């Protein structure tokens, strides 16, 4: 055990940190873009607070097309864009670009689902109190769906964490990359098992943390 840790510990630690770095930075930027997209999807819908059915249909289509692309294809497809944005096409930072691009449409749909759960009556009540559309979004729609958005956050983060295993193959590093290199290419199965254990711990921790946040935030059942 000690021997194993001495030999592979540093690699596993670096892999864990790379995975966390890619996951959290990607999640952050993906929400920065995905949250407004989700709001737009919800509000421009027929019966939404600012109906624009044609825009909604086109935008929804675009989101669906983006979501249909397999991640591996998308990642290779946007390598030129990645190189343009971060200056290089390999490494953990380069892995973030395809992760964000893949996660934005996913998060947009997750956010849309959360916002749809908000009682329509509350939105009508806000309108009757003289709220502007922006105030309805910021003060009613988003606030009322915070617990649901936080539960969505755990799903999004864990999905992105899963994708980091694939970005690993274009040299972005991380635990997935280690599992692939040592377990598949070199038959060092112990290293592979260690990465799997680490991934399980990370996923469980993210899930538990987000659940805790959601439960803390939710004022409905106390």
């Amino acid at each position, binding site marked *: 055990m000690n021997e194993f840790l001495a030999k592979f510990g540093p690699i596993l630690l670096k892999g864990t940190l790379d995975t966390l770095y890619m996951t959290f930075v990607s999640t952050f930027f993906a929400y920065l873009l995905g949250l407004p997209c989700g709001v737009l999807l919800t509000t421009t819908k027929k019966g939404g607070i600012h109906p624009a059915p044609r825009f909604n249909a086109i935008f929804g289509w675009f989101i669906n097309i983006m979501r249909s692309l397999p991640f591996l294809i998308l990642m290779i497809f946007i390598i030129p864009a990645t190189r343009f944005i971060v200056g290089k096409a390999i490494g953990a930072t380069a892995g973030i670009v395809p992760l964000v691009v893949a996660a934005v449409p996913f998060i947009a749909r997750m956010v849309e689902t959360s916002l749809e759960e908000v009682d329509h*009556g509350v939105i*009508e*009540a*806000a309108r009757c*109190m*003289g709220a502007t559309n922006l105030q309805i979004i910021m003060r009613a729609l988003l*606030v009322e769906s915070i617990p649901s958005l936080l539960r969505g956050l755990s799903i999004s983060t864990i999905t992105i964490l899963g994708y980091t295993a694939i970005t690993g193959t274009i040299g972005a590093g991380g635990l997935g990359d280690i599992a692939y290199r040592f377990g598949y290419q070199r038959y060092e199965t112990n290293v592979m098992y260690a990465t799997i254990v680490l991934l399980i711990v990370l996923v469980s921790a993210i899930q538990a943390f987000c659940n805790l946040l959601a439960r803390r935030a939710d*004022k*409905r059942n106390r």
Partner: protein
Amino acid sequence: MIEIKNLTKIYGEAEKASGQTVALQNVNLSIEKGDVFGIIGMSGAGKSTLLRCLCMLETPTQGQILLNGQFLGALQGEARRAAHRQMGVVFQGYHLLMQKNVEQNIAFPLTLVPHNKADVQARVQELLQLVGLTDKAKAYPSQLSGGQKQRVALARALATNPAVLLCDEPTSALDSLTTKSVLALLKDINQNLGVTIVIITHEIAVVKSICNKVAVIDESQFVEVGSKKEIFENPKSDITKLLLGKGGSTNE
């Protein structure tokens, strides 16, 4: 104060399979300042539709609504929001913000416009006292009883000092004792604050206890409009007699 002229509301589109529903047909009504106006009718008669047209949540298919001489249908943007602030609405389902506490719910309409925090705080305290919920200021809606939620909704609707208070079935979910206290509160608001009140209801007891005028609505139309006295002493239509429990022909 409020004039409803030839108001018609038809839901749905003729081409669609679901077809059309005529919810209101050529309705006329005039509500004066200081009235406690009861609008009573059976389920599906079109009461909520009328209220939703009044508070601009539905666009009339035909006809006009005037608030203090202003055509509601012509209002846009800030003028529309200003008209909204003139009308407090208490919905059947309360529609409180579930993630905000009582204080924050009541403060909500006040914080939609540029405001001073201390003034808002003072106004909220005043309203909490008015509805008797000072001890529940920090509670969340999920911790309140139906009657308490109703009071929060009432306080919130009154926060901006509206000229008119529109209430959809304000007591239908409450027991008889709580109903009495909510009605007493409404009466108090009308008499002491001079707020005109429109109450939608299906309970004749509500009309009896606080309204001065009544309109009876049946199948999308008003069958009778008048002072409470007139209608209680001399009901003309069958539906009114039924509502009053005075028989009438039931073989329709």
